[in-house]
C-alpha cells in the first residue's frame, strides 16, 4: 500500500484545494493516470499517479483545502484491497502522517541573536558615572530624587524609571528648588507693601490687611502642604549641597537673667523683656564681630551681607515654620527689638507678614525658649551660610575657678557652611556670643 499525497506544485505552494477525484475508491489506477484535480494559486492542476494498483481509501472530498504533503488517498495492490474488503471493516486505520512540522531552528536563531547582542556590546562605563536611562534621569529631576541613593535594576545596574518611582515613594517627594535667592543685601531693602507674596516665597501666606481683632485661623490644608513642600525643598537642598559643620558651647546665663529680672521689675508689664530679645540682640552684636557668618553662598561665591537681618524661627500652631526677618537687628535697641519681635510674631501667627520679611533674612536663629530641649543643631537655610541654635535655659552644675555651683546655663550651637567659613570663625562667633551675654547691660 502506498500513500498518495498532495504534491507541491511550486515553491510557494502551502496547500491546494481538491477540485475533483477523477477516479473513485476501488477503481484501478496505473502509473501516469490523472486521478485528481487540485486548484492552486496558479490555477487548476491535474495530478497524476505514480503507482499501479487500486485507489483504496480516500481522505479528502472536493472543496477541501489540503496542505502539501498530506495524504489524499491510499493506493493498494489488488491482493491487499481484496483481503481488506473480506476482512470487513477490520481494516487498519491508515494513519495520516502529520504535516511536517519544521522546528523554527530555535537554537540557531538564538545564536544569531546572541551574536548580534555581542556585536553591539555596551561601551565601558567609567566608574563614577551613574548608569541611568534618560527617562529615569528626567523623572528623578522632576521628583527631586537623589540619584546616588537609587539602586538600579536595569542592564548593568542601570537606573530605570521603575527604580526612580520606587525611590520617590520610599521617601518624601521634594518640591521644586526653592527660588528664594535674596538679592545681595547691601542697604536696607525696600519694604514691600503688604500684598500676597509671590508663590516662590517660602510660604504663600495671605497677607491682606484685616481689621478683625481676632484673625481667623486659616484652613491649613493647601497652605500647609505648600509650606511643607517649601520646607522640604529648602531643607533637602541644604542637606544635599551644604557641607555643615557644627559647634556648641555652654553659656552661663545667670548674670544675664538676673540683669533681665531686675530690669523687668522696673518696667510695666507691656515693656518687659523676654530673654529671647536679649539673646537675639547678643547674636546680632556677635555677628558684627564675625560678619562672615552673616550672608550667602551663591554661585560658588561667599557674599557677606552688610545688613544683619536675623530670621527668627517661629513655629506655627498648625504646624510648619516661618523665619521672618527682623531687619537690622543689630541697630535696634532692646525695646525696639522687643516691639519688632512682638509685632512679627503676632503677624506671623495671623498670616500678615510682608514679603520682604519672608525673603530678607541673612541668618537664622532658632531658639527653643523656656520649653523644649537643651540643644538644637540646625539645618542652614540656603543660600545662607550659618544657623544659630539656642537651647532651653536650665539649671546645671557649673565648675569655675575651682568651685562648683549651680548656674542657669544655655547651650548655644552653630551650624556653619564649610564652603564659606571654617570652624575657626565659628568658634570666634560663639566666643563673642558668650562674652556679649556676660555683658548684657551693654547690649
Amino acid at each position, binding site marked *: 500500500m502506498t500513500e498518495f499525497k498532495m504534491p507541491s506544485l511550486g*515553491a*510557494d*505552494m*502551502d*496547500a491546494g484545494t481538491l477540485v475533483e477525484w477523477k477516479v473513485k475508491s476501488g477503481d484501478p489506477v496505473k502509473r501516469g493516470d490523472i486521478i485528481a484535480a487540485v486548484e492552486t*494559486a*496558479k*490555477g487548476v492542476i491535474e495530478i497524476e499517479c505514480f503507482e499501479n494498483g487500486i485507489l483504496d481509501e480516500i481522505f479528502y472530498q472536493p472543496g477541501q483545502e489540503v496542505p502539501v504533503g498530506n495524504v489524499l488517498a491510499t493506493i493498494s495492490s489488488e491482493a491487499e484491497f481484496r483481503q481488506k474488503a473480506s476482512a470487513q471493516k477490520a481494516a487498519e486505520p491508515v494513519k495520516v502522517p502529520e504535516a511536517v512540522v*519544521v*522546528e*523554527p*531552528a*530555535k537554537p*540557531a*536563531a*538564538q*545564536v*544569531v*541573536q546572541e*551574536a*548580534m547582542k555581542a556585536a553591539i556590546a555596551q561601551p565601558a562605563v567609567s566608574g563614577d558615572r551613574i548608569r541611568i*536611562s*534618560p*527617562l*529615569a*534621569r*528626567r523623572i528623578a529631576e522632576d521628583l527631586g530624587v537623589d540619584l546616588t541613593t537609587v539602586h538600579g535594576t*536595569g*542592564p548593568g545596574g542601570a537606573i*530605570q*524609571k521603575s527604580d526612580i518611582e520606587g525611590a520617590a515613594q520610599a521617601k518624601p517627594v521634594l518640591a521644586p528648588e526653592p527660588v528664594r535667592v535674596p538679592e545681595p543685601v547691601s542697604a536696607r531693602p525696600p519694604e514691600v507693601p503688604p500684598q500676597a507674596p509671590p508663590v516662590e516665597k517660602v510660604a504663600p501666606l495671605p497677607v491682606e490687611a484685616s481689621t478683625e481683632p481676632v484673625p481667623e485661623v486659616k484652613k491649613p490644608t493647601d497652605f500647609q502642604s505648600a509650606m511643607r513642600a517649601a520646607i522640604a525643598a529648602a531643607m533637602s537642598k541644604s542637606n544635599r549641597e551644604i557641607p555643615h559643620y557644627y559647634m556648641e558651647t555652654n553659656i552661663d546665663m545667670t548674670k544675664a537673667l538676673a540683669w533681665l529680672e531686675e530690669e523687668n521689675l522696673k518696667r510695666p508689664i507691656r515693656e518687659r523683656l523676654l530673654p529671647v530679645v536679649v539673646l537675639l540682640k547678643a547674636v546680632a552684636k556677635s555677628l558684627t564681630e564675625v560678619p562672615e557668618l552673616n550672608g550667602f553662598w551663591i554661585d560658588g561665591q561667599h557674599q557677606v551681607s552688610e545688613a544683619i537681618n536675623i530670621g527668627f524661627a517661629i513655629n506655627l500652631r498648625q504646624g510648619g515654620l516661618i523665619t521672618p526677618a527682623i531687619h537690622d537687628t543689630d541697630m535696634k535697641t532692646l525695646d525696639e527689638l522687643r516691639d519688632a519681635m512682638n509685632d512679627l510674631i503676632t503677624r506671623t501667627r495671623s498670616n500678615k507678614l510682608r514679603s520682604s520679611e519672608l525673603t530678607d533674612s541673612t541668618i537664622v536663629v532658632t531658639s527653643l525658649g523656656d520649653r523644649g530641649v537643651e540643644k538644637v543643631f540646625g539645618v542652614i537655610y540656603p543660600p545662607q551660610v550659618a544657623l544659630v541654635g539656642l537651647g532651653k535655659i536650665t539649671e546645671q552644675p557649673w565648675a569655675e575657678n575651682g568651685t562648683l555651683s549651680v548656674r542657669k546655663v544655655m547651650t548655644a550651637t552653630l551650624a556653619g557652611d564649610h564652603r564659606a567659613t571654617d570652624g575657626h570663625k565659628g568658634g570666634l562667633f560663639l566666643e563673642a556670643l558668650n562674652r556679649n551675654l556676660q555683658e548684657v547691660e551693654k547690649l
Partner: protein
Amino acid sequence: MTLPSQNVIAEPQQLVKMTYREGMRQAIREAMLRDERCFLMGADVGRYGGCFAVSKGLFDEFGPEKIRDMPLSESAIAGIGIGASMNGMRPIVEIMTVNFSLLALDQILNTAGTLLHMSGGLFNVPVVIRMATGSGRQLGAQHAHSLEGWYAHIPGIKVLAPGTVEDMRGMLWPALEDPDPVLIFEQQVMYNMTEMVSATPVPVDIDHAKVRRPGKDVTLITYGSCLPKSMTAAETLAQEEIDTEVIDLRTLRPLDNDTIFASVAKTHRVLIVEEGWRSGSLAAEISARIMENLFYELDRPVDRLCASEVPMPYSKHMEEAAVPQPETIAAAVRKLVL
C-alpha cells in the same frame, strides 16, 4: 492624495476569506475597471499569470492591451512605465522581486524620483511599481533579500509595505491616485496568507502607520512579513503579562513619526523588527529619529532585531535563523522589559 471616492466604497459588507495574492489581484482588477488609464505591465504578467500568480486570469479578462507582457529587462520595464505615466497613463509596473529591481534602480531613482524636481515641477511621475520581497520561501540569495529599506532612502518616491490582506488590497488605488511614484513591496512569503476581509474594497490610509495591537510595556515597530510574526510574539508575551504595542509602519517612506513617537512616549521601550540587514537599515533610521526626538522618554536603549548580515541562505533552517522569528522577537522583547 485622496482616498477612493465615495461611489466606489460600498457600505461595510459581509466578510470574505481572501489571500494576500488575491487581494492584489482584486485591487488591480478594480483599478482597471475604475480608470481606463490603468494597465498592468511586466515580465510574465499576461499569459503566464505572473511569476507569483498575482495576475492569473487578468489577461483573459482584460486582454493584451491592458495586461502587457514585457521583455525581460527591468530597466526597460520601469522606464516604459515611467514614460507612460508622464504621458497620462496610470501604469502598474510589476517587477518580479526586489533583487531584480536593482536593474531598474537607475530608472526609479534617477528618473522617477527626480523628474519633478529636475523639470522644475513640470513633470510628475504617477507610476506605481510593485515587486515581491523577503524570505521564507527558500528562494536563496537570488530572490529572498529585503531591500525596501534602500528605496525608503530615496526622496521623491513613496514606499509602501502591506502587511495584511486588507492593506494589500486597499493600498493600490491610493497609490495610483498619488501624483508621484509609489513603490509597493509585497511579501512573497505572505501570498498564500488568508484573512477575512470586506467583500468590497476598504480605503487604506497610506500616509500613516497603524497600531495593530495596543500595549503599554514596550513598542514593537515592524512591517511586512515581520508583522504577523510580531503579532504572534505579542500574543505569547501577553501570556507572560508583557503588554506589547505593535506598530505596522505600512509606509516606509515617508515615515509616520507621530504614531511612532506617541507610542514610545507611552511605553518608553522600543524594539524595531525587520528583515533588512542591520547595518544602515530602516531600523537604524527609526532608532535615530527616536533618539533625536524622544531621548528623555527612553528607559532603555532602542533595540533592533534585523536579518543576519549574510546573503540569504537557501536551506530552510538557516534561512529561518537568518531573519526574525516569533521566538526571537519574543526573546528580544523580554530582554527589554525584564
